[in-house]
């Protein structure tokens, strides 16, 4: 019940600050647009680099939006109150991450057909891409939230966040793009999806504790 109230609060806040919703999405779109301009518009080339481009852009844009995950709550004392409240901080963190995922990733999934057109992806490749995005992006949000919680008290957190997180996202990037590559050659790609799913389960089990502990450290 209380958790549902937290979720409702998050979604309402996001709905009332639409600019922050749109900005990472536009950033994603722009990064993807830059690649054909940079490497040339050949359909073959674009198809080859397409999955990697979409995934790198997704990681970067999620980093951009993640910065705000706990910032306002930390500054206005909401976090301190939650620490004192009887609901577990891990649960609250999990709900916040879920809300963040819904707010920042679902729009990204919605405009992904456009990416398929831009980068000349075939239908099986696009299907694989959407599946990897669906399974992989919650992992981005969960692992990302740990680092966000650690850096929330710092004034100059932005670049540091990228420095901490990008190395951790390497396995996800590798498996996701290799799944799309397999799909482009008509090969089965369930193993890669299964591995991403396993990583997601691991993160789901451990990340809430890590986020809660990190928030306590930041709150001192």
């Amino acid at each position, binding site marked *: 019940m209380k958790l549902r109230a937290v979720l409702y609060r998050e979604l309402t806040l996001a709905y009332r600050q639409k600019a922050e919703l749109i900005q990472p999405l536009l950033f994603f779109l722009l990064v993807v647009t830059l690649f054909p301009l940079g490497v040339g518009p050949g359909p073959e080339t674009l198809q080859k680099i397409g999955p990697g481009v979409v995934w790198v852009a997704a990681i970067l844009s999620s980093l951009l939006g993640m910065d705000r995950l706990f910032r306002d709550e930390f500054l206005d004392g909401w976090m301190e109150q939650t620490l004192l409240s009887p609901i577990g901080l891990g649960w609250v963190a999990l709900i916040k991450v879920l809300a963040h995922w819904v707010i920042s990733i679902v729009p990204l999934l919605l405009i992904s057909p456009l990416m398929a057109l831009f980068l000349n992806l075939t239908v099986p490749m696009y299907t694989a891409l959407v599946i990897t995005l669906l399974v992989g992006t919650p992992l981005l949000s969960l*692992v990302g939230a*740990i*680092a966000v919680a*650690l*850096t929330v*008290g*710092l004034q*100059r*957190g932005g670049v*540091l966040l990228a*420095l*901490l997180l*990008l*190395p*951790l996202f*390497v*396995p996800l990037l*590798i*498996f996701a793009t*290799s799944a799309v590559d397999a799909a482009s050659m008509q090969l089965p790609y369930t193993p890669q999806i299964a591995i991403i799913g396993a*990583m997601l389960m*691991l993160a789901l089990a*451990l990340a809430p504790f*890590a986020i809660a*502990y*990190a928030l306590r*450290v*930041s709150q*001192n």
Partner: protein
Amino acid sequence: MWKWLNQYAKPEAAFNLCRRLLPWFGWLSGLCLTVGTVWGLAYAPADYQQGDSFRIIYIHVPSAILSMSGYAAMAVAALVGLVWQWRTAYMTMIAIAPVGAVVTFIALFTGAAWGKPMWGTWWVWDARLTSELILLFLYFGVIALYAAFDDKQQGGKAAGVMALVGVVNLPIIHFSVEWWNTLHQGATITKFGKPSIAPEMLWPLLINLLGMALFMAAVSVHRLQNEILRRELHRPWVMSLLHHNGEKSRAV
């Protein structure tokens, strides 16, 4: 055992332990590194395929192995700090971090220098090279996070969480890049089974491995001493220690 270990949660006890250990680590590592390097570079037979250029193995392999051990040591220290709330454990972690990063860099650099004559290129996106590079980035992350905090106590805790997250991720990163791309030769020394290297080449390698480990230990212990002094500057025991040293140097 527990009681014996627990006394080093006190900075002063840890400092004195470091002071006693440092000469041992230092001299033994100097001895091992001299013997191992001279033996390896001058007396070990040349490789039948790679000629004399294989000799860089005596620096490359110990540093590559120890770059991972360094991260493991850091993670153990972070875990101890997390579970038992020892301040000295976080200090140890921070003392090890730059040492491990430098050793990782040495492994990458010697690997590039070895790759040029053997593979004809300084860098390839091979699995082990990539995971070593990412290991270096993980070290940088821990160091940068600690450096960003003004409150070093809090910074130690935060960097500890990051080190533990990294250690969970390391095997995943390792296997992911392994499946992604592999060109590197197989491991030279494995724990199980016969090593794929002649014994007269192996001995100097093992001696150098030990020497390098002791060297890392010596530098880390020295850094830990400095860290303790810096953080405990206001304590009476540090004051009296500094005062005592000052008297001695003035007498000389």
